[in-house]
């Protein structure tokens, strides 16, 4: 393999894995904007989605597309439950108890799944049976192509939804100023519930997409969530474009780092990049430095 095609190969797989980080990071950003809180269970949405998919395919033997739709539907229900069990009782308290509560939820979800499915990682089917094809010496894995395509669609959908629909505008208003939104008659509690539902679904989608690449395991969510969080910081905390760019960047850095530096320490690169950004550009690539208002 030539040097160029090796690098292209690394870039391709880096972008695909990065796209999954971007999807989870998008969920992070939406919840941060709606509630000013980081949801520590964001990655576990991906884990739950992947396990739901595995169950539908192997235990219930459903066809792929039906399983896919049902798994996502399950995630929306899950988002509702999460909102009312984990966020809603603490909505009037400071961010500290809410964050700790989402952390508790994360531990609960991982270990409940562990109790049900056991510690063994599960394989998950790819969307298409064909392994992929080779273009100019670069092997394009079919699942990676699907990941990139779905991410593109999700981002386009989100852009359209937030900028061109009334519901999207209401969600934006809620995230900018809850009190004002309430005063103009927007049902804020509903909007936040909707945000959790959307984030849970997005997380589940990410899990279903990356499952065939990583194996479906209890800990997959925490790893992805850490990367996705790093992505939101690198891109600019709370910034949608930042989350996407940060996720892709991180995926590429990891892919090259693993190839050229070290495989066992692959998971450390995200953290190092995060520290570098915190040191030299804490507001991230797209972030603006905003002081708290007095």
């Amino acid at each position: 393999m030539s040097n160029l095609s090796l690098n292209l190969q690394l870039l391709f797989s880096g972008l695909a894995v990065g796209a999954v980080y971007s999807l989870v990071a998008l969920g992070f950003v939406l919840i941060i904007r709606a509630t000013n809180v980081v949801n520590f269970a964001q990655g576990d949405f991906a884990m739950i989605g992947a396990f739901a998919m595995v169950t539908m395919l192997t235990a219930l033997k459903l066809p792929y597309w039906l399983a896919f739709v049902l798994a996502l539907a399950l995630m929306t229900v899950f988002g509702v439950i999460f909102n009312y069990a984990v966020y809603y009782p603490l909505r009037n308290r400071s961010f500290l108890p809410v964050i700790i509560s989402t952390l508790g939820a994360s531990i609960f979800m991982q270990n409940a799944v562990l109790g049900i499915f056991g510690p063994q990682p599960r394989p998950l089917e790819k969307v298409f049976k064909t392994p992929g094809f080779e273009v100019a010496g670069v092997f394009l894995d079919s699942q990676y192509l699907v990941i990139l395509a779905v991410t593109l669609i999700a981002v386009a959908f989100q852009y359209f939804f937030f900028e061109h629909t009334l519901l999207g505008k209401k969600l934006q208003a809620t995230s900018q100023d809850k009190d004002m939104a309430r005063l103009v008659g927007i049902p804020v509690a509903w909007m936040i519930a909707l945000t959790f539902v959307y984030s849970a679904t997005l997380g589940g989608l990410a899990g279903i997409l990356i499952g065939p690449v990583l194996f479906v395991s209890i800990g997959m969510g925490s790893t992805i969530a850490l990367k996705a969080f790093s992505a939101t910081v690198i891109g600019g905390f709370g910034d949608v474009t930042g989350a996407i760019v940060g996720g892709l960047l991180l995926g590429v850095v990891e892919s090259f780092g693993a190839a050229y530096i070290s495989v066992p320490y692959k998971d450390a690169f995200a953290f190092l990049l995060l520290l570098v950004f915190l040191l030299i550009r804490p507001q991230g690539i797209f972030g603006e430095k905003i002081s708290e208002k007095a």
Partner: protein
Amino acid sequence: MTIQTLAAGASASTAARGFRAGALVLLLLLLAAALPLIPFVVKVNPYILNIFMQAVTYAVAVLGMTIVLGYTGQIHLGQAAFFGIGAYTVALGTLVLGLNFWLALLLGVVLASLAGFILGLTTLRVGGHYLAMVTISFQVIFDLILTNWIAVTRGPDGISGIGRPSLFGYTLADDKAYLMFCVFVLYLVIFGVWWLPKTRLGRAMQAVRENEMAAEVSGVATLVVKVVAFSLCAALGAVGGALYAAGFAYISPDNFSFKISIEFLTMTLLGGSQSPFGGALGTVLLILLPEWLRFLKEIYMAAYGLAVILIMVFMPEGIWGIVSRAWRRLRPLRPLAHGPVEPFKLDFPLTDTAPVLQLVNVQKHFGGVRAVDGININVARGTVHALIGPNGSGKTTTLNVLNGIYRPTAGQIIVDGKDLTHTSPHVRAGHGVGRTFQNIRLFPALSALENVMIGAQRAHNPIERSESALRRRALSTLDFVGLLDRADRVVRSLPYGHQRLVEIARSLAGSPTLLLLDEPAAGLNQTEKQELVTLLKRLRGHGITIFLIEHDMGLIVQVSDRISVLNFGRKIAEGTPDEVLRHPDVIAAYLGESVHAAA
């Protein structure tokens, strides 16, 4: 029954309750002292000894969490990594480098504090959520290194044969003796952590937890305080880990995983994060709980997660919160004993005639919006200078630039002849700039006295440095604003008007040369407004300089010597109240173009 006998009866029962409370404390202390001696008297199963060894060493690390989470309000999710640094340094230091236990322990503490310091310094600048994530990442990397750097850490197999330390020539090889030693260390740490909130540093930590911006503006170097808290926490983690390694003689990466960090967090929360007794209690309970709940083994971590949510929702103060509420019922409700209170003093010589504050061409732009567009104001010493203007004219932005919450786009801010343009709010507080906020920013869970003491402990406050001097200063300031009898009340429970006064007292206790008041009359009723006017007039007698924003014209006319008027970020008029209120531009700005006689 006469009033006297009633009073006597009440005080007798108060005394009796006081005696009972004192006896209870003494009894508990004796019990605590006797606890580690039990294994020497009664035969105890070695397994039980091991469990207690684990509980005691864990508790030391958990008390670090009390400082960082409970006192300072920062989320730290990697305490097991610091615990591991302590343990591995002792293991490798004694076995590989041949160091003595104590030296290895010291090295571990230094390494952990250093790691904490670096992580804290990079992360804590940028606020709330970052520390949580960065500490998890640190934890993940630490795990990776422990498992993969086999040449040094011996990888997943772990390290065995770690020796026990010796103390005064006596090796603590016996489990009972070593446990007693660990308990002794734990008691020392509990005492230290319990004492901390009664010091400047501990109060500053709580101020950061309660309201970071108010802390900064009151003169607390918030970043330093947070980094110190985090480093202390890391150091305690390392001490716990070192004791753990020597206690069990064997360690492996599993003992320092993210799961253990979560256990530390849960222990802190369950027991009550704001008290060292709570932390210790939570640790013992959660170590014993799995023993009692063996049947839950499979889903025991899931129950853990659920417990965290339930504690947050139903018991935010943990078990110790419930215990201490019961204790308060038992303890006599005696008013704060303070003895005679000194008169409040703010003695600034009025000989210096240079202006206290000079704003030179100050500008603040937000993107394209010129909120403050080149204003020049001089505030003369010993005067009350008001800044008025319609909504959105840039008043609060000016104040925020003035005390360093915003960096100006251009211009200079000179206080008492010193250029403070590029300093942070706490440095300005140290140069005598005090401030209150339009929507009151107090430290809600602290008492009025503690709130005011935090104001009094600013750098360069011209009072004695001792703790008792701080307290006297705070009491005399509270007396000055008429709240001496509320000194021990938690400010959250005070009525709105009193909260405003506490906020003013907090600034005054720091002897500000320049006091900035942001709409001090907002939300006050007529009586309270009159009291505020009286207070401001009394302050003028003390030679202090006041720069205030206010909408209530009646109040402004009564107290101000001079008024500057802003509109659209520019100064449109300045002068005595009479001059300014007749100024045609001012009338136009407030009432529109057609000119009416101002009332």
